[in-house]
């Protein structure tokens, strides 16, 4: 991914009006107006913000963010309780930057417009299996549909170092490992 920074050739930036990454990320816990205010006050203490002479108020933080020329993203996380109108009051002024909202409340679509929203559902079954494997430090070692299964590395309870587990996988000794699950077909290769 190409990253265009402010140090890059200015003529290049004027030709490419779209940046390829975010220069600033403002992460705001939006579970209540209190947490939003707290987060905005904290932003006033960023070195870049202090250089602009903010007075420490939430309003000055929003004004500073709105004045940024860099490509920023402001995330309002867990905006579950506030109404769209209440949250809108905390959007920085201006027409630049990016606003990202996570919420249990689907009516937040009124703020972003319905086409700029996505409902997140359950994870795919294959991803859920992979996640479970990662979380439990289990490895799928047989590729054959008939003999597929998982091994618990024998040294797991003594040493959680991944590289030593990996060495164990090079020469699996089934008699020293416990077969705990059968029937998975996909060989897990990312650890």
């Amino acid at each position, binding site marked *: *991914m190409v*990253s265009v*920074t402010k140090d890059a050739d200015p003529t290049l930036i004027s030709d490419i*009006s*779209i940046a*390829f*990454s*975010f*220069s600033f*990320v*403002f*992460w*705001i*816990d939006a579970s209540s107006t209190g947490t939003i205010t*707290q*987060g905005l*006050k*904290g*932003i*006033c*203490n*960023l070195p870049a913000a202090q250089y602009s002479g903010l007075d*420490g108020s939430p309003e000055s933080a929003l004004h500073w963010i709105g004045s940024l020329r860099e490509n920023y*993203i402001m*995330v309002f*996380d*867990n905006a*579950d309780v506030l109404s769209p109108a209440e949250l809108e009051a905390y959007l920085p002024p*201006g*027409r*630049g*930057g*990016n*606003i*990202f*909202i*996570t*919420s*249990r409340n*689907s009516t*937040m*679509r009124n*703020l*972003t417009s319905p086409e*700029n*929203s*996505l*409902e*997140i*559902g*359950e*994870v795919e079954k*294959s*991803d*859920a*299996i*992979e*996640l*479970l494997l990662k*979380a439990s430090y289990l490895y799928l070692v047989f590729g054959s549909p008939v003999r597929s299964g998982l091994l618990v590395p024998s040294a797991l309870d003594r040493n959680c170092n991944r590289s030593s587990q990996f060495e164990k996988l090079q020469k699996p000794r089934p008699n020293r490992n416990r077969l705990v699950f059968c029937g998975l077909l996909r060989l897990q290769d990312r650890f």
Partner: protein
Amino acid sequence: MALDLLQININNNYGNRTTSDGVIPLMPNPSNRFTGRTEVIAALKKHFFNTNDSAQKRKFFLLYGMGGIGKTQICLKFVEEMSEW
């Protein structure tokens, strides 16, 4: 069960939740067990970095869904991948 495990990790990453006034809010790291959701991440990249859109205009996006389903983690992962540092 997989979701429960993910949830535990989310909570572990939220040690900075109780920030007091004036403390710079830190973005939590995405779970190191983050898995899948590749289509959503790809859609987010397309939305925020669409090169066909010539106007430098503010972009909005909402991820919604039930609690614990992974909205925050998807956002963290996306932002981490698209940041300059």
